[in-house]
Protein backbone atom coordinates (compact mmCIF):
# COMPACT_ATOMS: atom_id res chain seq x y z
CA UNK A 1 0.00 0.00 0.00
CA UNK A 2 0.96 3.62 -0.30
CA UNK A 3 1.72 3.71 3.39
CA UNK A 4 4.55 1.29 3.02
CA UNK A 5 5.79 3.15 0.00
CA UNK A 6 5.97 6.26 2.19
CA UNK A 7 8.54 4.55 4.33
CA UNK A 8 10.84 3.84 1.42
CA UNK A 9 13.27 6.25 -0.13
CA UNK A 10 11.38 7.52 -3.16
CA UNK A 11 14.42 8.65 -5.14
CA UNK A 12 14.21 5.82 -7.65
CA UNK A 13 10.60 6.61 -8.26
CA UNK A 14 11.35 10.31 -8.71
CA UNK A 15 14.20 9.62 -11.09
CA UNK A 16 12.06 7.31 -13.12
CA UNK A 17 9.31 9.89 -13.28
CA UNK A 18 11.83 12.58 -14.12
CA UNK A 19 10.01 15.25 -12.12
CA UNK A 20 10.20 16.66 -8.64
CA UNK A 21 6.94 18.08 -7.29
CA UNK A 22 7.45 21.19 -5.18
CA UNK A 23 4.62 22.18 -2.86
CA UNK A 24 4.02 25.84 -2.16
CA UNK A 25 1.40 28.28 -1.00
CA UNK A 26 0.99 30.35 -4.13
CA UNK A 27 -0.09 33.43 -2.19
CA UNK A 28 3.25 33.75 -0.39
CA UNK A 29 5.10 36.81 -1.70
CA UNK A 30 7.94 37.26 -2.44
CA UNK A 31 8.99 33.63 -2.10
CA UNK A 32 6.49 31.89 -4.34
CA UNK A 33 3.28 33.33 -5.76
CA UNK A 34 1.25 33.76 -8.90
CA UNK A 35 1.55 37.09 -10.66
CA UNK A 36 -1.30 38.80 -12.46
CA UNK A 37 -0.83 36.72 -15.59
CA UNK A 38 -1.14 33.53 -13.58
CA UNK A 39 2.58 32.67 -13.81
CA UNK A 40 4.29 31.29 -10.75
CA UNK A 41 7.25 33.38 -9.71
CA UNK A 42 9.25 34.42 -6.64
CA UNK A 43 12.66 33.87 -5.11
CA UNK A 44 12.07 30.31 -3.99
CA UNK A 45 10.43 29.40 -7.27
CA UNK A 46 13.42 30.54 -9.29
CA UNK A 47 15.85 28.95 -6.87
CA UNK A 48 13.98 25.66 -7.06
CA UNK A 49 13.80 25.75 -10.86
CA UNK A 50 17.54 26.35 -11.11
CA UNK A 51 18.43 23.70 -8.53
CA UNK A 52 16.24 20.95 -9.89
CA UNK A 53 17.25 21.67 -13.46
CA UNK A 54 20.87 21.15 -12.54
CA UNK A 55 19.89 17.84 -10.94
CA UNK A 56 18.81 16.86 -14.43
CA UNK A 57 15.14 16.69 -13.53
CA UNK A 58 12.01 18.64 -14.36
CA UNK A 59 10.24 20.70 -11.75
CA UNK A 60 6.54 20.75 -11.22
CA UNK A 61 4.94 23.16 -8.76
CA UNK A 62 1.85 22.18 -6.83
CA UNK A 63 -0.22 24.77 -4.98
CA UNK A 64 -1.34 23.62 -1.54
CA UNK A 65 -3.19 24.92 1.48
CA UNK A 66 -0.40 26.04 3.84
CA UNK A 67 -2.24 24.60 6.82
CA UNK A 68 -1.98 21.15 5.26
CA UNK A 69 1.61 21.28 3.95
CA UNK A 70 3.04 18.41 5.99
CA UNK A 71 -0.05 16.35 5.30
CA UNK A 72 0.46 16.89 1.56
CA UNK A 73 4.14 15.95 1.87
CA UNK A 74 3.56 12.78 3.83
CA UNK A 75 0.66 11.73 1.60
CA UNK A 76 3.20 11.76 -1.24
CA UNK A 77 1.34 14.43 -3.21
CA UNK A 78 4.45 16.63 -3.17
CA UNK A 79 8.12 15.82 -2.75
CA UNK A 80 9.36 19.07 -1.23
CA UNK A 81 8.07 21.99 0.81
CA UNK A 82 10.07 24.89 -0.58
CA UNK A 83 8.40 28.15 0.18
CA UNK A 84 10.03 30.28 2.90
CA UNK A 85 9.78 27.26 5.17
CA UNK A 86 11.28 28.11 8.53
CA UNK A 87 13.21 25.42 10.36
CA UNK A 88 11.63 24.80 13.77
CA UNK A 89 11.94 22.06 16.33
CA UNK A 90 8.31 21.08 15.99
CA UNK A 91 8.63 20.75 12.23
CA UNK A 92 11.88 18.78 12.54
CA UNK A 93 9.87 16.02 14.15
CA UNK A 94 7.85 15.59 10.99
CA UNK A 95 10.20 16.41 8.12
CA UNK A 96 13.90 16.58 7.31
CA UNK A 97 15.39 19.94 6.44
CA UNK A 98 18.21 20.73 4.03
CA UNK A 99 21.03 22.93 5.24
CA UNK A 100 19.59 26.40 5.76
CA UNK A 101 19.89 28.70 2.75
CA UNK A 102 18.50 31.97 4.13
CA UNK A 103 18.53 33.73 7.46
CA UNK A 104 15.34 35.13 8.76
CA UNK A 105 14.09 36.97 11.83
CA UNK A 106 10.66 37.09 13.38
CA UNK A 107 10.36 40.87 13.47
CA UNK A 108 7.72 42.95 15.23
CA UNK A 109 6.04 45.53 13.01
CA UNK A 110 3.99 48.42 14.41
CA UNK A 111 2.60 51.63 12.95
CA UNK A 112 5.16 54.44 13.01
CA UNK A 113 3.07 56.50 15.46
CA UNK A 114 2.58 53.54 17.81
CA UNK A 115 3.30 53.75 21.53
CA UNK A 116 4.84 50.29 21.32
CA UNK A 117 8.62 50.76 21.33
CA UNK A 118 9.88 47.40 22.55
CA UNK A 119 8.82 43.89 23.29
CA UNK A 120 7.74 44.70 26.85
CA UNK A 121 5.21 47.22 25.53
CA UNK A 122 3.36 44.37 23.83
CA UNK A 123 1.86 43.39 27.17
CA UNK A 124 -1.94 43.56 26.95
CA UNK A 125 -1.72 44.65 23.32
CA UNK A 126 -3.44 42.94 20.41
CA UNK A 127 -0.86 41.09 18.33
CA UNK A 128 -1.42 39.32 15.03
CA UNK A 129 0.41 36.81 12.89
CA UNK A 130 -0.29 34.10 10.34
CA UNK A 131 -1.86 30.81 11.35
CA UNK A 132 0.41 27.74 11.28
CA UNK A 133 3.42 30.04 10.83
CA UNK A 134 6.84 29.82 12.40
CA UNK A 135 6.23 33.26 13.92
CA UNK A 136 3.41 31.71 15.92
CA UNK A 137 5.70 28.93 17.08
CA UNK A 138 8.35 31.44 18.10
CA UNK A 139 5.88 33.51 20.11
CA UNK A 140 4.43 30.44 21.79
CA UNK A 141 7.84 29.03 22.67
CA UNK A 142 8.81 32.32 24.34
CA UNK A 143 5.58 32.13 26.35
CA UNK A 144 4.67 35.62 25.14
CA UNK A 145 1.20 34.76 23.96
CA UNK A 146 -0.29 34.75 27.45
CA UNK A 147 0.83 38.33 28.08
CA UNK A 148 -1.04 39.68 25.05
CA UNK A 149 -4.52 41.11 25.15
CA UNK A 150 -7.03 38.43 26.28
CA UNK A 151 -4.06 36.08 26.65
CA UNK A 152 -4.38 35.25 23.00
CA UNK A 153 -3.01 36.10 19.61
CA UNK A 154 -4.97 37.02 16.49
CA UNK A 155 -4.34 34.54 13.71
CA UNK A 156 -4.96 35.39 10.07
CA UNK A 157 -4.84 33.19 7.06
CA UNK A 158 -2.41 35.50 5.25
CA UNK A 159 0.01 38.18 6.38
CA UNK A 160 -1.70 40.57 4.05
CA UNK A 161 -4.82 40.39 6.22
CA UNK A 162 -2.73 40.91 9.32
CA UNK A 163 -1.15 44.07 7.89
CA UNK A 164 -4.53 45.43 6.81
CA UNK A 165 -5.78 44.89 10.34
CA UNK A 166 -2.71 46.63 11.74
CA UNK A 167 -3.46 49.61 9.53
CA UNK A 168 -7.11 49.61 10.65
CA UNK A 169 -5.81 49.88 14.23
CA UNK A 170 -7.55 46.77 15.47
CA UNK A 171 -4.24 45.08 16.26
CA UNK A 172 -1.24 46.92 17.66
CA UNK A 173 1.55 44.80 16.21
CA UNK A 174 2.22 42.09 13.63
CA UNK A 175 4.91 39.48 14.09
CA UNK A 176 6.21 38.25 10.74
CA UNK A 177 9.14 36.82 8.82
CA UNK A 178 11.45 39.72 8.15
CA UNK A 179 11.70 39.02 4.42
CA UNK A 180 7.98 38.99 4.08
CA UNK A 181 7.45 42.00 6.32
CA UNK A 182 9.87 44.09 4.27
CA UNK A 183 8.02 43.17 1.08
CA UNK A 184 4.64 44.22 2.48
CA UNK A 185 6.01 47.40 3.98
CA UNK A 186 7.52 48.32 0.63
CA UNK A 187 4.16 47.68 -1.02
CA UNK A 188 2.03 49.54 1.49
CA UNK A 189 4.31 52.53 2.18
CA UNK A 190 7.64 52.47 4.12
CA UNK A 191 6.95 55.57 6.20
CA UNK A 192 3.76 54.18 7.78
CA UNK A 193 5.51 51.36 9.62
CA UNK A 194 8.21 50.84 12.16
CA UNK A 195 10.14 47.64 12.82
CA UNK A 196 11.16 47.23 16.45
CA UNK A 197 14.80 46.57 17.27
CA UNK A 198 13.84 43.59 19.38
CA UNK A 199 12.51 40.50 17.68
CA UNK A 200 11.27 36.98 18.38
CA UNK A 201 14.54 35.34 17.42
CA UNK A 202 16.63 34.39 14.46
CA UNK A 203 15.58 31.64 12.21
CA UNK A 204 16.62 29.91 9.07
CA UNK A 205 14.77 28.83 5.98
CA UNK A 206 15.24 25.31 4.75
CA UNK A 207 13.64 22.95 2.30
CA UNK A 208 11.35 20.28 3.76
CA UNK A 209 11.91 16.69 2.63
CA UNK A 210 10.17 13.47 3.71
CA UNK A 211 12.08 11.74 6.52
CA UNK A 212 12.72 8.65 4.46
CA UNK A 213 13.95 10.54 1.37
CA UNK A 214 17.60 10.67 2.37
CA UNK A 215 18.92 10.44 -1.19
CA UNK A 216 16.89 13.42 -2.31
CA UNK A 217 18.02 15.37 0.74
CA UNK A 218 21.67 14.62 0.02
CA UNK A 219 21.41 15.59 -3.63
CA UNK A 220 19.60 18.82 -2.80
CA UNK A 221 22.25 19.82 -0.31
CA UNK A 222 24.95 19.16 -2.91
CA UNK A 223 23.22 21.23 -5.57
CA UNK A 224 22.57 24.12 -3.17
CA UNK A 225 26.22 24.16 -2.19
CA UNK A 226 27.25 24.26 -5.85
CA UNK A 227 24.85 27.12 -6.56
CA UNK A 228 26.13 29.11 -3.62
CA UNK A 229 29.70 28.50 -4.75
CA UNK A 230 29.27 29.43 -8.41
CA UNK A 231 27.18 32.56 -7.80
CA UNK A 232 23.93 31.36 -9.32
CA UNK A 233 22.17 31.65 -5.94
CA UNK A 234 23.57 35.14 -5.43
CA UNK A 235 22.21 36.25 -8.81
CA UNK A 236 18.68 35.16 -7.95
CA UNK A 237 18.93 36.84 -4.56
CA UNK A 238 20.12 40.07 -6.20
CA UNK A 239 17.11 40.00 -8.48
CA UNK A 240 14.58 39.66 -5.67
CA UNK A 241 16.17 41.45 -2.71
CA UNK A 242 18.69 43.79 -4.33
CA UNK A 243 21.50 42.09 -2.40
CA UNK A 244 22.89 38.64 -1.76
CA UNK A 245 21.32 37.34 1.44
CA UNK A 246 21.81 33.67 0.68
CA UNK A 247 24.09 32.10 3.22
Amino acid at each position, binding site marked *: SSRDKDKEDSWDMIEERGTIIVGLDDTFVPMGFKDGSGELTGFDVELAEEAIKSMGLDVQFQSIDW*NLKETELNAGNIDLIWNGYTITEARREKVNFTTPYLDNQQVIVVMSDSSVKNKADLKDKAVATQNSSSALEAIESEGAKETFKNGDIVLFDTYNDAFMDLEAGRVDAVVADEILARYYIAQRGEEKYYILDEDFGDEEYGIGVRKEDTTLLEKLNTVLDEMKADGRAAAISDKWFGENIVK
Partner: protein
Amino acid sequence: MSYIMEIMPLMMQGLRTTIWVFVFTGLLSIPLGMIICTLRLSKSKILQGTMQLYILIVRGTPLLLQLIFVFFGLVYVGIVLDRGTAVLIAFTLNYAAYFAEIFRGGVMSISEGQYEASKVLGLSKRDTYFGVILPQVFKRVLPPVGNELITLVKDTSLVYVLGLGDVIRAAKTLSNTQASLMPIVVAGVIYLVLIAIVTYLLRRTEIKYNYYR
Protein backbone atom coordinates in the same frame (compact mmCIF):
# COMPACT_ATOMS: atom_id res chain seq x y z
CA MET B 1 -8.23 8.98 25.18
CA SER B 2 -5.40 11.07 26.61
CA TYR B 3 -4.87 12.11 23.00
CA ILE B 4 -8.42 13.44 22.82
CA MET B 5 -7.83 15.30 26.09
CA GLU B 6 -4.80 16.92 24.54
CA ILE B 7 -6.61 18.41 21.59
CA MET B 8 -9.80 19.28 23.45
CA PRO B 9 -8.86 22.69 24.92
CA LEU B 10 -8.21 24.23 21.49
CA MET B 11 -11.24 22.49 20.00
CA MET B 12 -13.48 23.78 22.78
CA GLN B 13 -12.20 27.29 22.26
CA GLY B 14 -13.12 26.92 18.59
CA LEU B 15 -16.50 25.48 19.51
CA ARG B 16 -17.30 28.54 21.60
CA THR B 17 -16.76 30.77 18.55
CA THR B 18 -18.84 28.48 16.35
CA ILE B 19 -21.70 28.52 18.82
CA TRP B 20 -21.93 32.22 19.47
CA VAL B 21 -21.75 33.07 15.78
CA PHE B 22 -24.51 30.52 15.14
CA VAL B 23 -26.79 31.63 17.95
CA PHE B 24 -26.55 35.37 17.39
CA THR B 25 -26.81 35.14 13.62
CA GLY B 26 -29.86 32.92 13.96
CA LEU B 27 -31.56 35.21 16.45
CA LEU B 28 -30.89 38.36 14.43
CA SER B 29 -31.26 37.21 10.84
CA ILE B 30 -34.62 35.44 11.06
CA PRO B 31 -36.58 38.51 12.22
CA LEU B 32 -34.59 40.71 9.84
CA GLY B 33 -35.40 38.28 7.04
CA MET B 34 -39.08 38.59 7.86
CA ILE B 35 -38.87 42.36 7.68
CA ILE B 36 -37.01 42.24 4.38
CA CYS B 37 -39.55 39.79 2.96
CA THR B 38 -42.37 42.13 3.99
CA LEU B 39 -40.68 45.11 2.36
CA ARG B 40 -39.88 43.06 -0.73
CA LEU B 41 -43.59 42.27 -1.08
CA SER B 42 -44.75 45.80 -0.29
CA LYS B 43 -46.54 47.98 -2.80
CA SER B 44 -43.79 50.61 -2.99
CA LYS B 45 -41.73 50.09 -6.12
CA ILE B 46 -38.75 51.77 -4.47
CA LEU B 47 -38.77 49.43 -1.49
CA GLN B 48 -39.31 46.44 -3.75
CA GLY B 49 -36.44 47.44 -5.98
CA THR B 50 -34.07 48.19 -3.11
CA MET B 51 -34.77 44.87 -1.47
CA GLN B 52 -34.38 43.03 -4.75
CA LEU B 53 -31.00 44.64 -5.34
CA TYR B 54 -29.94 43.91 -1.80
CA ILE B 55 -30.93 40.26 -2.09
CA LEU B 56 -29.27 39.99 -5.48
CA ILE B 57 -25.95 41.32 -4.24
CA VAL B 58 -25.94 39.35 -1.00
CA ARG B 59 -26.93 36.06 -2.58
CA GLY B 60 -24.83 36.74 -5.65
CA THR B 61 -21.51 37.04 -3.85
CA PRO B 62 -19.78 34.68 -1.43
CA LEU B 63 -20.13 35.30 2.29
CA LEU B 64 -16.35 35.09 2.52
CA LEU B 65 -15.98 38.16 0.32
CA GLN B 66 -18.69 39.94 2.28
CA LEU B 67 -16.81 39.29 5.50
CA ILE B 68 -13.62 40.69 3.98
CA PHE B 69 -15.54 43.67 2.69
CA VAL B 70 -17.23 44.49 5.99
CA PHE B 71 -14.08 44.00 8.03
CA PHE B 72 -11.36 45.41 5.78
CA GLY B 73 -13.24 47.35 3.14
CA LEU B 74 -15.24 49.58 5.45
CA VAL B 75 -11.99 50.78 7.00
CA TYR B 76 -11.41 52.76 3.80
CA VAL B 77 -14.51 54.81 4.53
CA GLY B 78 -13.51 55.26 8.15
CA ILE B 79 -15.67 52.54 9.71
CA VAL B 80 -13.55 50.34 11.93
CA LEU B 81 -15.55 47.49 13.40
CA ASP B 82 -14.26 45.04 15.91
CA ARG B 83 -14.03 41.42 14.88
CA GLY B 84 -17.16 40.18 16.63
CA THR B 85 -19.29 43.04 15.36
CA ALA B 86 -18.04 42.64 11.80
CA VAL B 87 -18.79 38.93 11.87
CA LEU B 88 -22.30 39.46 13.19
CA ILE B 89 -23.08 42.22 10.71
CA ALA B 90 -21.87 40.26 7.70
CA PHE B 91 -23.49 37.00 8.79
CA THR B 92 -26.78 38.63 9.76
CA LEU B 93 -27.09 40.66 6.56
CA ASN B 94 -26.20 37.59 4.53
CA TYR B 95 -28.53 35.13 6.19
CA ALA B 96 -31.39 37.62 6.39
CA ALA B 97 -31.40 37.76 2.59
CA TYR B 98 -31.70 33.98 2.37
CA PHE B 99 -34.42 33.85 5.00
CA ALA B 100 -36.28 36.66 3.23
CA GLU B 101 -36.37 34.65 0.03
CA ILE B 102 -37.49 31.52 1.84
CA PHE B 103 -40.33 33.45 3.49
CA ARG B 104 -41.28 34.98 0.17
CA GLY B 105 -41.44 31.54 -1.41
CA GLY B 106 -43.64 30.45 1.48
CA VAL B 107 -45.96 33.43 1.12
CA MET B 108 -46.33 32.84 -2.60
CA SER B 109 -47.03 29.13 -2.15
CA ILE B 110 -50.20 29.85 -0.19
CA SER B 111 -53.09 29.22 -2.55
CA GLU B 112 -54.90 32.09 -4.18
CA GLY B 113 -58.09 30.94 -2.43
CA GLN B 114 -56.74 31.99 0.96
CA TYR B 115 -56.15 35.54 -0.26
CA GLU B 116 -59.51 35.63 -1.98
CA ALA B 117 -61.31 34.38 1.11
CA SER B 118 -59.57 37.01 3.23
CA LYS B 119 -60.47 39.68 0.74
CA VAL B 120 -64.16 38.92 0.57
CA LEU B 121 -64.30 38.68 4.34
CA GLY B 122 -63.02 42.24 4.44
CA LEU B 123 -59.81 41.45 6.29
CA SER B 124 -57.22 44.19 6.00
CA LYS B 125 -53.95 43.53 4.21
CA ARG B 126 -52.31 43.49 7.59
CA ASP B 127 -54.69 41.00 9.18
CA THR B 128 -54.55 38.81 6.08
CA TYR B 129 -50.77 38.78 6.20
CA PHE B 130 -50.33 38.25 9.91
CA GLY B 131 -53.43 36.21 10.70
CA VAL B 132 -53.96 34.06 7.63
CA ILE B 133 -50.83 33.91 5.51
CA LEU B 134 -47.87 34.00 7.90
CA PRO B 135 -49.14 31.29 10.26
CA GLN B 136 -49.48 28.96 7.29
CA VAL B 137 -46.15 30.10 5.90
CA PHE B 138 -44.38 29.17 9.15
CA LYS B 139 -45.42 25.57 8.79
CA ARG B 140 -44.28 25.41 5.19
CA VAL B 141 -40.94 27.17 5.54
CA LEU B 142 -39.82 25.17 8.52
CA PRO B 143 -37.90 22.61 6.44
CA PRO B 144 -35.99 25.15 4.31
CA VAL B 145 -35.34 27.34 7.36
CA GLY B 146 -33.97 24.25 9.06
CA ASN B 147 -31.69 23.57 6.12
CA GLU B 148 -30.45 27.13 6.24
CA LEU B 149 -29.72 26.89 9.96
CA ILE B 150 -27.74 23.72 9.39
CA THR B 151 -25.78 25.45 6.67
CA LEU B 152 -25.19 28.29 9.11
CA VAL B 153 -23.60 25.93 11.60
CA LYS B 154 -21.09 25.02 8.93
CA ASP B 155 -20.64 28.50 7.50
CA THR B 156 -19.46 29.76 10.88
CA SER B 157 -16.05 28.39 9.90
CA LEU B 158 -15.59 31.34 7.54
CA VAL B 159 -14.77 33.57 10.50
CA TYR B 160 -11.17 32.37 10.07
CA VAL B 161 -10.71 35.10 7.50
CA LEU B 162 -11.13 37.74 10.24
CA GLY B 163 -8.66 36.02 12.48
CA LEU B 164 -11.22 34.26 14.66
CA GLY B 165 -10.60 30.64 15.49
CA ASP B 166 -13.49 28.22 15.09
CA VAL B 167 -13.64 24.43 15.29
CA ILE B 168 -12.31 23.83 11.79
CA ARG B 169 -9.35 26.11 12.17
CA ALA B 170 -8.55 24.46 15.46
CA ALA B 171 -8.72 21.09 13.73
CA LYS B 172 -6.52 22.17 10.83
CA THR B 173 -3.96 23.71 13.18
CA LEU B 174 -3.84 20.59 15.32
CA SER B 175 -3.74 18.37 12.26
CA ASN B 176 -0.75 20.37 11.10
CA THR B 177 1.18 20.31 14.39
CA GLN B 178 0.48 16.64 14.97
CA ALA B 179 0.73 15.51 11.37
CA SER B 180 -2.46 13.53 11.79
CA LEU B 181 -5.96 13.60 10.36
CA MET B 182 -7.46 12.72 13.74
CA PRO B 183 -8.32 16.29 14.78
CA ILE B 184 -10.23 16.70 11.50
CA VAL B 185 -12.24 13.59 12.26
CA VAL B 186 -12.96 14.94 15.74
CA ALA B 187 -14.11 18.23 14.21
CA GLY B 188 -16.42 16.26 11.94
CA VAL B 189 -17.92 14.53 14.95
CA ILE B 190 -18.40 17.84 16.76
CA TYR B 191 -20.29 19.22 13.79
CA LEU B 192 -22.42 16.10 13.58
CA VAL B 193 -23.39 16.48 17.22
CA LEU B 194 -24.16 20.19 16.86
CA ILE B 195 -26.26 19.57 13.80
CA ALA B 196 -28.03 16.63 15.43
CA ILE B 197 -29.08 18.99 18.23
CA VAL B 198 -30.32 21.61 15.79
CA THR B 199 -32.20 18.93 13.82
CA TYR B 200 -33.82 17.63 16.98
CA LEU B 201 -35.07 21.07 17.95
CA LEU B 202 -36.39 21.63 14.45
CA ARG B 203 -38.28 18.35 14.46
CA ARG B 204 -39.89 19.27 17.78
CA THR B 205 -41.09 22.54 16.25
CA GLU B 206 -42.41 20.74 13.19
CA ILE B 207 -44.41 18.37 15.36
CA LYS B 208 -45.95 21.35 17.11
CA TYR B 209 -47.23 22.60 13.77
CA ASN B 210 -48.71 19.26 12.84
CA TYR B 211 -52.04 20.06 14.42
CA TYR B 212 -53.44 20.79 10.97
CA ARG B 213 -52.77 19.61 7.44
